[in-house]
């Protein structure tokens, strides 16, 4: 099958420091690719370039065969790229349900006049979005929190809310930045299942995650970054045996105790 997302020689510098340098890899439909590496390896920076938050200094991002390098996030969203953030980007003062409904922004679009007058077509769209949003909340286990203000949720719940909102866009490519951070073991396992399920439906998933057990368990393919460079890639078994990876990543982790 052809690549859904292909990263070609991507790089960026901040004040002379190469935060990410010449990174290439690709993600196929239904595949889960994880980007790992020690803190400061450039994982989130890489994500920010792919999702249009930063303009890459070098290289290309290809989405479904089209060059989308440096395209603004809202246009990427329209082309089927959706993402979550390590430090959460939630509509804090909306309810949980409203957050997810906002994710239906693109699919639900109709004439403003129809909405104001409350025409049947508009109500039908709103009902559809509402039903879809409730279903997604059930999938991520937030049904009971639906009417609560998002700002009052626990960190782990917000993580799942962000995933639900990202899924509301019905993405072709889903970028998840540390989806399990701050979640307990049970929640992590739930997120595991959720990600596997989404991938099984044909979505290409790119994942940054610190929880190594989770990464090893669900990834098809792992890309290892260190100091902004790709030092290894392959399936979980290969990568975990790679001496360079052990030195850079696991070694560094052990050294910190």
């Amino acid at each position, binding site marked *: 099958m052809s690549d859904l997302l292909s990263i070609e020689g991507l790089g960026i510098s901040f004040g002379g420091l190469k935060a990410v340098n010449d990174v290439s890899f690709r993600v196929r439909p239904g595949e889960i690719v994880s980007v790992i590496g020690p803190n400061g390896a450039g994982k989130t920076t890489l994500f920010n370039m792919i*999702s249009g*938050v930063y303009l890459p200094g070098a290289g290309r991002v290809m989405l479904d065969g089209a060059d989308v390098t440096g395209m*603004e*996030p*809202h246009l990427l*969203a*329209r082309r089927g790229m*959706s*993402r979550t*953030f390590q430090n*959460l*980007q*939630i*509509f*804090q*003062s*909306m309810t949980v349900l*409203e957050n997810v*409904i*906002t*994710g239906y*922004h*693109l699919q*639900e*679009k*109709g004439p*403003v006049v129809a*909405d*104001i007058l*409350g025409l049947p077509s*508009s109500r039908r769209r709103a009902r559809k979005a509402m039903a879809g949003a409730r279903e997604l909340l059930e999938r991520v286990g937030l049904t009971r929190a639906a009417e609560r203000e998002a*700002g009052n949720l626990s960190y782990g719940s917000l993580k799942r809310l962000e995933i639900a*909102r*990202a899924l*509301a*866009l019905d993405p072709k490519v889903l970028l998840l930045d540390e989806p399990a951070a701050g979640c307990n073991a049970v929640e992590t396992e739930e997120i595991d299942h959720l990600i596997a399920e989404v991938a099984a439906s044909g979505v290409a998933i790119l994942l940054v995650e610190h929880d190594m057990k989770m990464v090893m368990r669900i990834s098809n393919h792992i890309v290892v970054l260190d100091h902004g460079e790709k030092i290894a890639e392959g399936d979980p078994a290969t990568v975990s045996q790679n001496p360079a990876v052990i030195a850079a990543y696991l070694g560094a982790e052990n050294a910190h105790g």
Partner: protein
Amino acid sequence: MSELLQFLFSGITVGAVYALVALGFTIIYNASDVVNFAQGEFVMLGGMITWFAHAQGLPLPLAALIAIAATAALGVAMNKLMIEPARGAPVVSLIIITIGASIFIQGAAQLVFDKQIHSFPAFSGDDPIRIGGATILPQSLWVIGGALVVFLALWLFFTRTLLGRAVLATSNNRLAAQLVGINTNFVMTLSFALSAAIGALAGVLATPITLTAYSVGIGFALKGFAGAMLGGMGNPKGALVGGFLIGLFEAMTAGYLSSQYKDAAAFIVILAVLFFMPQGLFGRKSTDRV
């Protein structure tokens, strides 16, 4: 008693104008957290352009329509030329830019039009309507009706339409809004157009009562701002109630104290709100997650 009623009527009339200005503040604030101090100039332009077009021989409704459309276009230009290029600047800088825009528009109006005081005929004549010993002008009813209609339309827009929700989403979290596919630049442009059109409408409705000149904008801006603050920034209901309360407070001050202190009323309200309830009557407490 009839005296009190008279003050009430005049308070509600100016209050409706302030409510319209406050609603204009609300829209831009909702989209961007920016308090647009050029909002008063939109009111001025609404009145001045209508006067000018009417004086050129155009029928009043057409003149008013032109004024509202032209002011909306100016609002869009202001966003494109002044606010958008400064995207990413702190909100305070953007607010200062709007003050600059306000001074610029005022100066330009002085050059393009003149420095005289102008008016145009009231829409439904000048015969006062008698109610319980007091009188109210038909034009006052136009102003009050205008404020209520705009409020209702905005309320429907923000609660019912997807676009309205996109505006709220943009103010709530711009990056998250972009992530779900909202074109936040378009939302900003739309907000400025709407705000400017509402401001101009206020000018069109109020001018037969309050008269207009190139310099009236600042007064409207400050009092509308006081109303928006009192009601709670960003809340359409708050803007409506706050605007009317400022108008009433002003009319009572003028009636029972001295009309010299009339303009001080709004400032006292601003100070009192800032000291005692910064979130206003209907505002939410803001809680930032760290």
